[in-house]
């Protein structure tokens, strides 16, 4: 089980922090925006109120054209450093008095403007009529800077930022505490799952408690573990039992096999002595009585002698086969190419009258018993020569290919071939697909080949068709 890339703990903390910070920032933006709007409204109201007060105080000054008094009324504005400029206008809208007194032109418009307020780039401007007893006697103009608003915004932003920072701290503490409550059972469970997965120890229980889904999950997991543990125990018991039975059965088989081998060996061995007697005495009888016997008698003796020799050969082969099953393997590195070459040389001596066209592919060096492998080649090569007998020139191709971690050696001939229906019978003892009159042989050769190859850990098989030659394969582990 691979380790998780991130922890649920981190995810939970991140989710909570993100949520709270986003909400706070949004609230902060709304708060600042609302505060700016309401503070602007407040500034307007304050300035309008101030304009109204000044207007009320300056009605007589305007009505009776008293510049000193008008200037004095406006001069009260110097108490407020935010006031940039102010102006009083007479009935006809001409500028009458200014603040500061004798203000530079441009600071205050020369003619009174429409009633109302407006925000300039950095100023707030209010124009109000001045009226006495409901009759307009002039107008007032006030211009205030907005530094206060800037300060307010600055303070607001600072407050919001501080609140967000503080809240992030609190949110972090809270989310750490909360995630512990949520994540710890999950982490415990994950740890248990990890150790179960790593150690295959199904006796562990999460024992996680919780009133939420994690608790349910833990409970279900524990139940599952219980089930697995029970089944695991059963499987182990069954396995152990099975193994025991296999061992017992194998031992039985081995004993039976050994007994059988011993039996066949002793039978074969014991059969040889009387057979040698028969053969020896038939020879003696032939020497001794050939002159007294007629032609028929001599033919009978020859038949007996031939049968005895054949039986001897058969018994020898059987003994060899039996020995092959029991003989100890002496494994060493074997060069298949030179081994095959030697076998071919031996066979050339035995079959001088046959023309054989040998063709060898590159053969590797393998690990095995050289004597046994020599026997394999002997059998396969002599079979190939034998079954291509009627065709005159025999062509035999020997090759080796690596395949799926094995070395597959093939021996192909252009002989009589065989019926593929019986391919599985080829390697059995005494299994012959051709009559003894057609081809000589005891029917033990291929059985020996299979036995040797399988003792080396390989397999044997054959391909072919009647009249189209045959290919015999054996594989050896690399």
């Amino acid at each position, binding site marked *: 089980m691979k380790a998780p890339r991130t922890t649920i703990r981190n995810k939970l903390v991140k989710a909570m922090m993100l949520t709270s910070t986003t909400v706070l920032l949004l609230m902060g933006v709304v708060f600042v925006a609302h505060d700016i709007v309401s503070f602007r409204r407040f500034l307007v109201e304050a300035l309008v109120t101030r304009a109204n007060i000044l207007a009320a105080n300056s009605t*007589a000054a305007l009505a009776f*054209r008293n510049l000193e008094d008008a200037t004095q009324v406006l001069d009260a504005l110097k108490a407020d450093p935010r006031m940039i400029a102010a102006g009083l206008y007479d009935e006809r809208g001409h500028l009458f008095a200014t603040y500061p007194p004798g203000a530079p032109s441009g600071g205050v418009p020369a003619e009174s403007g429409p009633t109302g307020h407006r925000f300039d780039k950095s100023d707030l401007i209010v124009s109000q009529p001045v009226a006495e007893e409901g009759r307009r006697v002039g107008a007032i103009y006030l211009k205030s800077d907005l530094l206060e608003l800037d300060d307010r915004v600055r303070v607001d932003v600072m407050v919001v930022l501080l609140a967000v920072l503080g809240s992030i701290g609190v949110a972090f503490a809270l989310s750490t505490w909360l995630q512990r409550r949520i994540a710890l059972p999950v982490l415990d469970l994950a740890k248990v799952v990890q150790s179960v997965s790593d150690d295959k120890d199904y006796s562990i229980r999460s024992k996680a408690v919780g009133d939420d889904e994690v608790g349910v999950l833990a409970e279900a997991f524990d139940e599952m573990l219980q089930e697995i543990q029970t089944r695991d125990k059963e499987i182990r018991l069954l396995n152990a039992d099975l193994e025991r039975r296999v061992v017992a059965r194998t031992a039985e088989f081995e004993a039976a096999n050994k007994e059988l081998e011993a039996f066949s060996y002793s039978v074969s061995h014991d059969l040889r002595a009387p057979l040698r007697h028969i053969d020896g005495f038939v020879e003696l009888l032939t020497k001794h009585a050939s002159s007294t016997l007629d032609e028929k008698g001599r033919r009978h003796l020859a038949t007996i002698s031939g049968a005895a020799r054949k039986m001897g050969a058969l018994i020898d082969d059987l003994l060899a086969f039996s020995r092959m099953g029991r003989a100890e393997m002496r494994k060493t590195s074997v060069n298949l190419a030179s081994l095959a070459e030697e076998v071919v040389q031996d066979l050339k001596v035995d079959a001088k009258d046959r023309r054989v066209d040998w063709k060898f592919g590159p053969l590797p060096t393998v690990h095995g018993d050289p004597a046994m492998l020599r026997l394999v080649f002997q059998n396969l090569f002599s079979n190939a020569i034998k079954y291509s007998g009627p065709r005159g020139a025999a062509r035999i191709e020997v090759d080796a290919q690596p395949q799926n971690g094995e070395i597959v050696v093939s021996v192909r001939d252009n002989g009589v071939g065989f019926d593929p229906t019986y391919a599985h019978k080829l390697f059995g003892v005494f299994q012959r697909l051709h009559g003894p009159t057609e081809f000589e042989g005891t029917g033990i050769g291929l059985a020996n080949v299979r036995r040797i190859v399988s003792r080396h850990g390989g397999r044997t098989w054959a391909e072919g068709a009647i009249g189209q030659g045959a290919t015999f394969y054996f594989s050896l582990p690399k």
Partner: protein
Amino acid sequence: MLVLARRALILTLVTVLNSSTAFGAGAKLTQEYDLKATFLFHFAQFVEWPAETLPDKAPFTIGIIGNDPFGKSLDEIVANETIEGHKLVIRRFQNLGQIDSCQILFIAPSEGKRLDQLLSHLDRRSVLTVGDSRDFALRSGIIGFVISDKRLRLVINLAAANAAKLTISSKLLRQSEIVGPAPVRE
């Protein structure tokens, strides 16, 4: 001391009157009386008359006695104006007997000789008397026009106003020089 001071004031008044007459005819004089006409109108806003002297729907009268120096300007200013629901009207009087209901009475400079007679006739009546000199206020007229520093200023005799049961707005008082603790009779 007081008497000396008064003499000095009278002298000053004479000088002012001379200088004001020096405005002579022409645009400057017209301008001056245009402004005075406006002031007369504004007095209606800054002075309160006892309710019984100004019944509902009665016109608010601005009277002129003597030679009218305003020409058409005063009529233009008050045309279609009302003050607290009272229609403003201008009436021109030639002698005392014609003065019956009147809230503001401008006593033209031509009446200088019979000023005391006029004032005593109006004594205790709620009429805001307005004259064209500082001396006017000193001689128990209520408001006198004064020109100083090329500006039109007001001199108010508060005692005379009180005697006439008129309440002058503090705003108006702020604009004015206040003279005379008591009506002056000579």
